[in-house]
């Protein structure tokens, strides 16, 4: 039915999902939580809290542009570009599609748990819970804003693993709620700097859905980081990968009205 939007939507899904991966995350096999210990859970929670403290920007604004290049076997590459405006202190962000032209003007505004999707073709605002899929794209928006995994997941240590040559602690997250991006995730947290380098997203049944690799980070304020390169691999669509770059990063103050329905409508086609 959504013929007109399907191809771009698929791209956006891939693109955003790639981005999403960065936020979402993992589980290598659906292994059972370690019997043991509240201490293990505390350690896992401490690891999550530590990297969230580095990835969240509680003071000041952040705007950046994500370019997503999707590769799929037998098809030409697709490119999508989105501009993000982020204010973690208020737990809000706005996302506007800039490219391709057919998607331009589409956007999202999230304010805490409230997420609005704006569809320029019908002038509609669709209200959604932030942890739900975005439209029909299977894209989760929590990647772009403030990260707060422990409010949605129980964390347990799931051993250690080597990602490339890095030693990582593996934290398994099991959803506490129904309406989360992924029921199970595994985050591979690099020892030394405590930042995630790999995330695996699983279905409730333990099927691997997606793997994301954080290839590069950039320090945007003292002790605060944002990823600038990410690779997401779709485990269901063989040969489908999305490479995401993040640039035009600015910490300049963003006008308040950017976080409103009015801004989305102003950007409309």
């Amino acid at each position, binding site marked *: 039915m959504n*013929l007109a939007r399907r191809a771009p939507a698929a791209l956006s899904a891939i693109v955003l999902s790639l981005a999403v991966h960065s936020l979402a995350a993992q589980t290598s096999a659906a292994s059972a939580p370690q019997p043991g210990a509240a201490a293990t859970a505390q350690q896992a929670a401490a690891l999550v809290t530590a990297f969230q403290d580095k990835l969240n920007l509680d003071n000041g604004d952040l705007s950046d542009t994500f370019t997503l290049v999707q590769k799929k076997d037998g098809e030409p590459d697709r*490119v999508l570009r989105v501009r993000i405006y982020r204010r973690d202190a208020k737990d809000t962000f706005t996302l506007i599609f800039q490219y391709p032209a057919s998607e331009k003007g589409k956007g999202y505004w999230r304010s805490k748990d409230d997420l609005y999707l704006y569809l320029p073709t019908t002038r509609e605002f669709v209200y959604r819970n932030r942890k739900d899929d975005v439209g029909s794209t299977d894209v989760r928006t929590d990647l772009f804003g403030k990260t707060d995994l422990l409010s949605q997941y129980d964390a347990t240590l799931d051993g250690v693993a080597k990602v490339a040559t890095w030693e990582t602690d593996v934290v398994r997250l099991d959803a506490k709620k129904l309406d989360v991006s992924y029921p199970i995730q595994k985050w591979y947290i690099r020892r030394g700097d405590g930042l995630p380098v790999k995330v695996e997203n699983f279905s409730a049944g333990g099927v691997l859905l997606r793997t994301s690799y954080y290839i590069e980070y950039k320090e945007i304020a003292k002790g605060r980081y944002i990823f600038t390169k990410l690779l997401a691999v779709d485990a269901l669509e063989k040969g489908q990968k999305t490479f995401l770059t993040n640039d035009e990063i600015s910490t300049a103050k963003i006008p308040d009205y950017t976080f409103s329905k009015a801004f989305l409508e102003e950007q409309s086609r």
Partner: protein
Amino acid sequence: MANRTIVRAALAVVQAALFAVAIGGQAAAAAGAQASIVAGGQAATPAASAADNPFDASAFDAAVGASAGPPSAAQSAAGPASGGAAALDGAAIGSSSASTVRTEYLVGGSILVSSYSVLPAGLSWYQSSAAATGRIFGKVSVPDYGSLYMSYNLSQGLFAAQGGTPPQAALLANPPLGLAAPTWAPAELHYSFDFGKRVFVRFGKQLLAWGPSRVWSPIDFVNQTKADYFSPIDLRQGKPGLRVFLPLGPLNATAFADFSGLTAGSLVFDPATATRFAGRLDATFGGFEWGVSAYGGHGAQAKGGIDFSGDFFGSAIYGETAFAPEGAGSSAFIQSSLGLSRSLGDLKDWSLSFEGFYNSAGADHAGDPPALATATPLYSGMWYLYAALAATRLPSSDFQTRVSALSNLSDKSLSLSLEEDLSPPGMPPLNLIASLSGGGAGKEFTWLYGDGAVSITVRTSIEF
């Protein structure tokens, strides 16, 4: 005069289109350049240096950091071991301006190319046609002045065929589009501006978003016509008026002065008595968005409505209720819709959706063709139900399959549809729909083509 205006408008659109093509080309080039930089492997990180092809995940998994080793103590102290410091040199971090304010031009459109064929149960006749329909728009935004938006609907018949003798009602209800020349009609033309980014004004012929429902929208008593959920492209005409929008954090207020009654032919009326007004407040709390709407004015039936939308235990639910007392020659009514959609399966590749509609003013019009011919489709009965089950990646990743049923429960007629979205590589995406109407002759879904009629639709659309 009107023709000259249209010609000028068309020229402006063409000029704007050429400009947009140039801009689009630059954007594409920029995107391509960016992609090539990425593909070239900026040696900023161990990952990139180890894997020339950034899409090679196995290379990343196996070799990332192989040359760099684990982060050094110094790196650990300084921050992440990304090795990307050199890449940060040209970054815009801390820049004072996020973007450059400039005049922006945008031209685009959505075009639907479709074919439609209908066959009655006895195959005694057939009708078939193909057409291109769509909307072309242009928008220019000038800093501190606002933006001007204009759109035109266009349609062009591409093919028409007929065999046997279709019912006269069918010919009248769905005449084929002419093949000789396209038809054009202005859909929207409005000027938007704001006061200090606090109050947003839109003046002119415009469409308004009014309510969350999908198939039935009882509280949309503002637009001239209800949105068609089953049409891939919104081809409604805008309504002349003045809209004022005030965002107040989680609360949004919208006021609309409806000028559609100010003129009738060559007559012009007093705005004090001919203007009608609509207002809407929406806010979020408790995990839902709630809205309250009202419409009225001199000589108009007063109407009110409430609506909500949100998520409940993993399902999206929404609803609207509109009510109106008797007035302005119209009877009192209550209309209400309620919908739910939910993803199913471990991989969430199935979705189930329902929407129901109640209309106190509706009735069973079975056997009354004149009443059915003049009624608004999907609003003439008292009770309706829509249900759909969709599956992605069925039978493969290039397909999406949907079965749906739409029924007028008052006259017990219905339409069953099987829909297939195809997007195989190297081909335009296609949407195929096969529908069967049933429930007895002379009812809402059967009075045009008869009980048991089958229709086949094939369509694709282009957005640019």
